[in-house]
C-alpha cells in the first residue's frame, strides 16, 4: 500500500463531492456534496501526515479534528437556514432560491 493510493482516493471523492454540489438542483444534495468534499480533504491531510516524521505527523492528525468540528457547526447553521428558506419558498430546488425576495 503506497501513499499515492490514498491521495488518488481523496481526489476521486473530492471530484465527486464538487460535482454533486454543482450539478444537482436539490438543496440537500448540495449540502451532502460539500460534506463529501470536506471529508476528502480530511483524508488527504491524514494521508500526507503519514509521510512525515513523528511530531509533524501528530500535527497532521490533529488538524482533521478541527475540520470535523467546523463542519459540524457548518451543518448546524446550514440546516437551520434550509428550514427557514423551505418555510418561505416551500421548495427544495436551489433554482427557486435565486430571487432574494422575502
Amino acid at each position, binding site marked *: *500500500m*503506497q*501513499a*499515492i*493510493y*490514498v491521495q*488518488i*482516493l481523496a*481526489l*476521486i*471523492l473530492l*471530484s*465527486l*463531492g*464538487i*460535482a*454533486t454540489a*454543482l*450539478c*444537482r*438542483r*436539490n438543496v*440537500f*444534495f448540495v*449540502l*451532502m456534496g460539500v*460534506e*463529501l468534499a470536506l*471529508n476528502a480533504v*480530511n483524508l488527504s491531510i*491524514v*494521508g500526507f*501526515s*503519514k*509521510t*512525515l*516524521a*513523528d511530531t509533524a505527523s*501528530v500535527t497532521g*492528525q*490533529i488538524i*482533521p*479534528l*478541527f475540520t*470535523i*468540528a*467546523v*463542519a*459540524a*457547526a457548518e*451543518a*448546524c*447553521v446550514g*440546516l437551520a437556514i*434550509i*428550514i*427557514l428558506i423551505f*418555510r418561505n419558498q416551500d421548495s*427544495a430546488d436551489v*433554482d427557486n432560491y435565486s430571487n432574494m425576495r422575502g
Partner: protein
Amino acid sequence: MLALIYFIILAVIAVGCSLCIFFTKHPLYASIAMVTTMLSLAGIYGLLGSPFVGAVQIMVYAGAVMTLLMFIILVLNGSRDNTTKRFDKVSIFVLLSVIAVACLTSIVLCHSTFAFDPATVRGGVDVTAHTLFNVSAGGNGYYLIVLAIGLVLLSAMATAVILARKRIASDPEKVLPEEVH
C-alpha cells in the same frame, strides 16, 4: 499486502457510495449512502494508523451530522414536490471542468515522489490528548484552538436555535387560532 486488500475493499465501498450520492433521486437514500461512505472512510483512517480520527469521524459525522440531516429531510419531506430534473445542460460543463481539474491534479500527483514514513506516529488517544492539551510554554498551543472551536460550536448552536425558533413564533397560522380561543 493484507492492508492493500483492505484498502481496496474500503475504497471501492467509498467510491461506490459516492456515486450513489451523485445519481440517486431521493435525498434520504443519498444520506444513507453518505453514512456508508463515512464508515468506510473511518475504516481507512484506522488502516492508515490514526484510529482516533476514525472514531471521531464515526461519532461526529455518521452519528451526529448525518442523523441531523436525515431528520431535517424527513421533517421537511424535501423531495415531495421535486419536479425538476436531476441534471440539466449546465451539468455537462460542470462535469467536464471537474474531470479536467481532476486529471490535472492526478498528473501532478503521479509525478511527485512521496512515500509512507515508517517512523511515523500512530495517532491513538494518548498521543492526541498529550498534543492537544499541552499547556506548557513550549507546546504548540492547540488548546487555544480547542477553546475557539468550543466557542464556534456554541455560537452555531445559538444561531440555529434563534433561526429556527423565530420563524415559528411569528408564524401567523399558528398564533391566530389561539387568540380566537
